[in-house]
C-alpha cells in the first residue's frame, strides 16, 4: 500500500476504535441511567459513522454488521422499540465483533473471514419482535454538551523525545548550577534554572492522561461479569480527571481490572445472600482516585463480604505458606496481607475469571515494579478496600546522594524516611541493629552489600514493604533532582540498581533499588515478630536499679537480677566461713558490703542468679533505663558503676 494510504488507514483504525469505545460507554451508560432520546441519537450517530467509514474503505463485512446494528437502532430511535436489555447486549456484541474485525484490518488489511450471520440474525430478530423484555425506564436525561476541546493528537514517540530532551536539559542545568557555585547564581543562570523547571513540569504534563482512560472500560466489565454471575452491582467512579503518566497508566491497567474482577467474583455476594445479611440487593463497587503529594492514590472499595481471616489462615496453612503455630500469632494486618502471597487463593472454585491464585501477588509485583504500593483493608461481613499508591512520574525524581566505599549512589527520596547518626549498635540473631525511638532497626552496610567494606557512621532509614531498615553509608551529600536513566540491558539483571544518573559534576551515580538492596542483605530473615520478641527481652534487661554508696557514689544493678529490697537489722547479720550472711527465707544469704552501712538498718538488695547474694548499700535511688557497653555508665546524670552481680557471686564462692 502506498504511504499515504497507510496513514489514512491508521487514522481510520484509531478513529474506529475510539468510536467503538465511545459506543460501548454510551450503551452501558444508557442501560444504567436510562435511554433518553439524546443518548439514543448519540448511539445511532456513532454506529452510523462506523458504517460509513467502513464502507468508504471497502470493508464489506464491517459495514454489513454496522448496517444491521444501525437498522435495529433506527427502530429504537423512532420509538418503535424501547431500548431494552437484550438490544443493548446485542449492540455490545456488535462492538466486540467490530473490534475483532478491526484487528483483522490491522494485521491483514482486510476485515477478515469470520462469520457474523448469527449476530446479524439476532439483530434482525430483535427488530421484528414487538414484545420485548422489561424496558429500561428513561428519565429525562440532562442535555449533554459536546464541548469542542482545543486538543491536538500527537505521536507518542514525539512526546517521549520531548521528555528525553527535557531530561537532558535538567542534567545540563544541574551541571551549570554546580559550576556556577552557590550561593550567588548569576541572574542568567537563575533564569535558566526557572525556565528549565517550568519546561520539565510542562512536558511531564503532556504525558499525563486522566485515569478515566483506564476506568472507562470498567463499567462494561462490571456489567458483563455481574450479569454472568447473576449479581447486581453498581459501579461508581470518583476522580476521573486524576492524571497519571502514560507509562504508569499502561502499567496499572491490568492490575486494576483484576482487582475489579476479584471484587465482583469473590467480594460482592449474590443478591439473595446480601438481602439475608441486611444489605441492599445491589452491591456497590466504588473506585476513587486522588492526588496526594507526589503520588496518586487509587482506592477500590466494595461492600461485599470482606476477607474472612479464619479462611485466609486456613488456606495459608493448607498451601504450606506457614505453620499452624505461626498462624495463630498473626496480627489482623498480617492476615489480610497473606492474600498477596504467591499461590494463594481462597476461592472455592477456580473460575476462568479469577481464583487461580496468581492474581493478587502479580498485582502487587506489577504495582511495586513502578514504584508503587498496595494495601488491603478489609472487615469481614462489611467489605474490602484495596488502596494503590502510585508515583506521579518515573523519569525525574528527587534523590539523596550518598557515598559508600568510595563511590556515589543515589537513593530515591520516596524511599527515604530519615537520617540518623549511629550511636551504638547491638546484635540480634547476628544482625546489627540500632534503637530508634524504642523500635529496633536492622542495619545494612551499603559498602558490604555491594561487595566492599562495611564502613560508615550515618544511617539512611529506608522503607521496604512497610518494614524500615537502616542503610549505613560513609557520607550523605545532597538531595538532587535526578534524571533516571536505564542502566541498560546488560545490567538489568542486577536487582540492586534501579537505573543510573549523571550528577551535577558529570559523574555517574548508580540509583539504588531499595528492594534489591534489602533482598541482597537478606533482610527477610529479620522477621518482625522475632524482632518484637527480642525487643521485649532487651528492654527488660536494660533497666537498672541505682543505689547509693556512701554519700556520693552510686552503683547500679540490672533490674531483672533483683529479687527484693530488704531492710535488715544489723543484729541479724551472722558470720559463716568468713563472710557475712543473714538468714533469709529458709536460706543463708551471703552479703557483700558495698556501702558503709552505718546505722541499725541495712539496705539489702537481694539478687538471684546461679547464686544468690545480698548487696548492702546505703540507700536506694530509683530505676533507670540504660544501654550498657560494660564500662561505667551515666544514669540520672551521674556516673554510676554497674555491678556485675554474677561475677561478684562467683568470686564469693572461691573466696
Amino acid at each position, binding site marked *: 500500500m502506498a504511504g499515504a494510504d497507510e496513514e489514512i488507514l491508521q487514522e481510520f483504525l484509531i478513529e474506529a476504535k475510539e468510536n467503538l469505545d465511545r459506543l460501548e460507554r454510551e450503551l452501558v451508560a444508557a442501560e444504567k441511567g436510562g435511554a433518553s432520546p439524546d443518548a439514543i441519537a448519540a448511539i445511532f450517530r456513532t454506529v452510523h459513522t462506523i458504517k460509513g467509514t467502513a464502507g468508504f474503505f471497502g470493508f464489506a463485512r464491517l459495514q454489513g454488521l454496522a448496517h444491521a446494528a444501525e437498522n435495529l437502532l433506527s427502530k429504537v430511535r423512532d420509538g418503535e422499540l424501547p431500548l431494552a436489555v437484550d438490544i443493548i447486549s446485542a449492540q455490545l456484541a456488535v462492538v466486540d465483533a467490530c473490534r475483532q474485525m478491526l484487528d483483522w484490518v490491522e494485521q491483514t488489511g482486510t476485515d477478515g473471514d469470520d462469520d457474523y450471520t448469527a449476530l446479524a440474525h439476532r439483530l434482525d430478530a430483535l427488530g421484528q419482535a414487538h414484545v420485548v423484555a422489561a424496558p429500561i425506564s428513561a428519565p429525562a436525561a440532562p442535555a449533554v454538551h459536546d464541548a469542542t476541546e482545543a486538543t491536538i493528537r500527537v505521536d507518542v514517540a514525539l512526546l517521549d523525545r520531548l521528555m528525553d530532551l527535557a531530561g*537532558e536539559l535538567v*542534567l*545540563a542545568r544541574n551541571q551549570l548550577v554546580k559550576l556556577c557555585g552557590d550561593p550567588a547564581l548569576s541572574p542568567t543562570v537563575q533564569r535558566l534554572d526557572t525556565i528549565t523547571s517550568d519546561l520539565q513540569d510542562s512536558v511531564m504534563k503532556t504525558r499525563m492522561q486522566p485515569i478515566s482512560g483506564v476506568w472507562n472500560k470498567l463499567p462494561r466489565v462490571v456489567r458483563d461479569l455481574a450479569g454472568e454471575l447473576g449479581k447486581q452491582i453498581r459501579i461508581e467512579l470518583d476522580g476521573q480527571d486524576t492524571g497519571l503518566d502514560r507509562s504508569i497508566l499502561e502499567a496499572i491497567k491490568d492490575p486494576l481490572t483484576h482487582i475489579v474482577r476479584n471484587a465482583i467474583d469473590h467480594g460482592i455476594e449474590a443478591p439473595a445472600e446480601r438481602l439475608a445479611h441486611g444489605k441492599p440487593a445491589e452491591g456497590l463497587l466504588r473506585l476513587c482516585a486522588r492526588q496526594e503529594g507526589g503520588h496518586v492514590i487509587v482506592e477500590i472499595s466494595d461492600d461485599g463480604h470482606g476477607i474472612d481471616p479464619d479462611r485466609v489462615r486456613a488456606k495459608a496453612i493448607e498451601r504450606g505458606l506457614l505453620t499452624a503455630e505461626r498462624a495463630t500469632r498473626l496480627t489482623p494486618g498480617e492476615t489480610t496481607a497473606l492474600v498477596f502471597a504467591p499461590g494463594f487463593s481462597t476461592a472455592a472454585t477456580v473460575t476462568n475469571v479469577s481464583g487461580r491464585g496468581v492474581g493478587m501477588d502479580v498485582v502487587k509485583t506489577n504495582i511495586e515494579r513502578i514504584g508503587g504500593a498496595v494495601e488491603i483493608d478489609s472487615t469481614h461481613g462489611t467489605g474490602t478496600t484495596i488502596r494503590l499508591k502510585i508515583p506521579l512520574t518515573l523519569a525525574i525524581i528527587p534523590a539523596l546522594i550518598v557515598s559508600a*566505599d568510595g*563511590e556515589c549512589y543515589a537513593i530515591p527520596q520516596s524511599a527515604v524516611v530519615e537520617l540518623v547518626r549511629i550511636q551504638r549498635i547491638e546484635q540480634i540473631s547476628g544482625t546489627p541493629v540500632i534503637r530508634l525511638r524504642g523500635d529496633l532497626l536492622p542495619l545494612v552496610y551499603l559498602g558490604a552489600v*555491594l*561487595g*566492599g567494606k562495611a564502613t560508615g557512621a550515618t544511617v539512611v532509614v529506608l522503607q521496604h514493604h512497610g518494614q524500615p531498615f537502616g542503610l549505613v553509608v560513609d557520607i550523605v551529600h545532597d538531595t538532587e533532582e535526578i534524571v533516571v*536513566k536505564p*542502566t*541498560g*540491558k*546488560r*545490567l538489568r*539483571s*542486577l536487582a*540492586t*540498581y534501579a537505573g*543510573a*544518573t*549523571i550528577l551535577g559534576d*558529570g*559523574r*555517574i*551515580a*548508580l540509583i539504588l533499588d531499595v528492594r534489591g538492596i534489602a533482598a541482597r542483605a537478606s533482610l527477610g530473615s529479620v522477621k518482625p515478630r522475632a524482632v518484637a520478641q527480642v525487643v521485649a527481652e532487651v528492654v527488660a534487661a536494660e533497666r537498672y536499679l541505682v543505689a547509693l554508696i556512701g554519700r556520693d557514689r552510686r552503683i547500679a544493678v540490672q533490674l531483672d537480677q533483683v529479687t527484693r529490697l530488704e531492710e535488715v537489722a544489723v543484729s541479724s547479720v551472722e558470720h559463716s566461713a568468713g563472710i557475712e550472711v543473714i538468714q533469709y527465707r529458709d536460706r543463708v544469704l551471703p552479703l557483700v558490703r558495698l556501702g558503709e552501712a552505718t546505722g541499725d538498718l541495712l539496705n539489702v538488695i537481694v539478687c538471684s542468679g546461679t547464686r544468690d547474694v545480698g548487696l548492702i548499700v546505703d540507700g536506694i535511688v530509683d530505676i533507670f533505663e540504660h544501654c550498657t557497653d560494660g564500662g561505667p555508665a551515666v544514669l540520672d546524670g551521674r556516673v554510676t558503676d554497674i555491678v556485675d552481680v554474677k561475677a561478684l557471686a562467683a568470686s564469693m564462692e572461691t573466696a
Partner: protein
Amino acid sequence: MTFGVPAIDVQEILRAQPLTRVPLADAAIAGLMNLRGQIVTTIDLRARLGMPRRAEGDRSNHVVVRCADGVFSLLVDAIGDVLVADASRYETIPEHVPAEFREVVAGAYKLSDHLLFALVLERIVTEMS
C-alpha cells in the same frame, strides 16, 4: 592480538575516560561512561576474551559501537586502522581455542604478517555464558 569490528557499527573512538564502577556486575564490565549525557556501559575486551588484565597505567582506548541492544563501549589497548578485509583470506576459529574466545570471535582474516580476529559484537555485549 589484533581484533576487528565492522566499521559501520563504530560510532566513535575515545581516549581513556573516567569510568564509574558497577559493583556486583560481572568481571567484563569495566564500568559506566558519561558520553555527552548518555550513560554507556563499557566492556573490557580483555576480560571478555578471558585474557590477562591490563596493567595499571597502561594505555587504553574506547571503541564506541552501536548494536541491536544499544550503544556500548569496548575498552581496548590501542586503536589501529580501518581496512577492507579480503573475504578470501577468512578462516573460522579452530576447535581447540578456549571457549570464551570462540564465543565472541567468529573467525580470522589472514593479513600479511598477523591474524585479524573478527569480533561478533552481539555476543560481546551479552552476558558471558
